C-alpha cells in the first residue's frame, strides 16, 4: 500500500498529464465517430454567436460569387416555371394536380465557419433545431452536395462535409447508371473518388456524378462532380474513379438543408430487412 502511494506521489504529474490526455482524446474520438450531444463544437451557443459575428464581417469577401450563384439558380428555376411553356397539345385540359406528393422540403442557411484542408472538415451553419434542422439531414448548395448534419443546437448546426474520411454518400454515374459510393482522400478539396465500380465496366470521362437518393438523405440527381480519371485499386477488381467536385468548397456561403417528409416511412419499411442481409 505504501509503495502504491509512493508511486502515485512520484508520478503524480505524469498521471495528471495522462488524465488530461485521456479526457481530450476520448472526446475527440467519440465525437468524430458518431453524432452526439451538443457540447464542444462551434454549434455551441456562445462560440456559434461569436462565429456569426465574424461571418458578418467576412461575408463581403465572397459577395460577388454568392450573388452570381443565386442569380444562376434563379435563372434555372425561372426556366421551369409554367408561364414559360406553351401548350402544344390542344386536346388535353389542365386539371388540378394531385398525382404528385411533396417529398422534400429545403431549409436555407449560410455557413459561418468552415475548414477545407483538415483531415475531417466540418462546416457550422447558422440554422438549428428552431428552423427544423435535425441530425442526419442532407446539405447541398446550388452546384453540388455539401454533407450531412452531424450535430445540432438551438440556433446552429454542424455539417460533416463530404470532405471527411467516411462520408459514404451513394452516388449514381450518369448516363451509364452505375452506382457507387463517395470517398475523400483527405488531401485535395477539389477532388474525390467513387468506389464500388467493377473494372469490367467501361466508364466515359466527364460523365456526371449525381446523388442516387437511395438512403433518403438527398433527393435524386443533386450534382457532385465529373469523372476525371480511372485508377485501378490494388488487389481488387474495382476502379477508383477520381472525380472533380462541381462545388468550390473554399468560397461556399449559402446552402440548403434537405428535409425528407417521407423519411420515416422509408426507414420503417427498411427495418423489415433482416440485419445480416443489410451489410
Amino acid at each position, binding site marked *: 500500500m505504501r509503495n502504491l502511494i509512493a508511486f502515485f506521489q512520484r508520478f503524480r*504529474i505524469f498521471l495528471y498529464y495522462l488524465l*488530461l490526455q485521456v479526457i481530450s*482524446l476520448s*472526446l*475527440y474520438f467519440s465525437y468524430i465517430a458518431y453524432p452526439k450531444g451538443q457540447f464542444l463544437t462551434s454549434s455551441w451557443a456562445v462560440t456559434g454567436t461569436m462565429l456569426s459575428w*465574424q461571418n458578418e464581417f467576412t461575408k463581403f469577401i465572397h459577395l460577388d460569387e454568392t450573388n452570381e450563384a443565386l442569380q444562376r439558380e434563379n435563372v434555372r428555376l425561372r426556366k421551369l416555371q409554367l408561364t414559360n411553356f406553351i401548350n402544344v397539345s390542344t386536346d388535353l385540359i389542365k386539371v388540378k394536380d394531385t398525382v404528385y406528393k411533396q417529398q422534400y422540403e429545403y431549409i436555407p442557411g449560410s455557413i459561418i*465557419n468552415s475548414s477545407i484542408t*483538415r483531415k475531417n472538415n466540418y462546416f457550422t451553419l447558422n440554422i438549428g433545431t428552431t428552423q427544423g434542422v435535425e441530425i442526419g439531414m442532407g446539405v447541398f448548395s446550388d452546384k453540388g452536395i455539401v454533407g450531412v448534419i452531424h450535430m445540432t443546437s438551438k440556433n446552429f448546426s454542424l455539417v460533416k462535409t463530404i470532405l471527411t474520411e467516411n462520408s459514404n454518400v451513394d452516388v449514381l454515374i450518369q448516363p451509364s447508371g452505375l452506382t457507387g459510393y463517395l470517398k475523400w482522400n483527405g488531401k485535395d478539396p477539389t477532388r474525390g473518388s467513387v468506389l464500388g465500380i467493377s473494372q469490367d465496366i467501361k466508364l466515359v470521362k466527364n460523365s456526371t456524378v449525381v446523388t442516387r437518393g437511395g438512403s433518403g438523405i438527398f433527393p435524386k440527381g443533386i450534382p457532385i462532380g465529373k469523372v476525371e480519371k480511372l485508377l485501378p485499386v490494388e488487389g481488387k477488381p474495382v476502379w477508383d474513379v477520381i472525380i472533380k467536385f462541381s462545388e468550390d468548397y473554399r468560397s461556399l456561403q449559402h446552402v440548403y438543408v434537405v428535409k425528407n417528409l417521407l423519411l420515416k416511412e422509408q426507414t420503417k419499411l427498411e427495418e423489415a430487412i433482416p440485419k445480416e442481409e443489410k451489410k
Partner: protein
Amino acid sequence: MEIILIPLIRFFGLLLLQVFILNAIEPGMGIYLMAYPLLIAILPFNYKVVTVLSISFLIGFMVDLFSNTFGLHASAAVTMGMARPLLYKYLAPRDGYDVLRQPNVLDMGLRWHLLTFGSLLFIHHIWFFILESFRLDNVAEALIKTLLSGLLSLIICLIIQYLFFKKEKAR
C-alpha cells in the same frame, strides 16, 4: 495591475487571432497556422508543472470549441505543456533561470528561443497531425505538414513577439 492585465490581454489576443484569423487562412498543402502554442511557451518560469498543464488544457480546449476539432488541440497542447518543463530544464543556463525574465525571444535571446520554442512547436505539431491522420501509412504526409506548418507558425510567433512584446527592464 500590469502583472495581471498583460497576460490576460496576451491570452485573449492570441486566442482571438487563432480562431478568427489564422483558422480562416488555409494556404493549402495541409498547412495549419497556429499561434496559440506561444501562449504555453511564454508562461513564467516559476509556474508549477501542474499549473502549466492545466492552462495548456484550457487553451487547447478553447481553440477546439471554435474549430470543430473536438479535443485534438487540447491533446496537442497538453503534450506540449508536458514537454515544456523537461525541455526548459535541459536547456537551462548554468546558474538557473532569472525569475524576473520571461521565456520569450526578447528576454532570452533568439538562439535559446528558436531552440526551445522550435522544438516545442515541433512536438505540438507532430502530435496534432499524426493524431489527425491516425494512420501509419500517412506518417510521411503528417511529417511534411508538421514541417511546413511549424516553420510558418514559428515565423508568425516571432513576428508577434517582436511587434507586441516588451523587453523586461534590466533590474
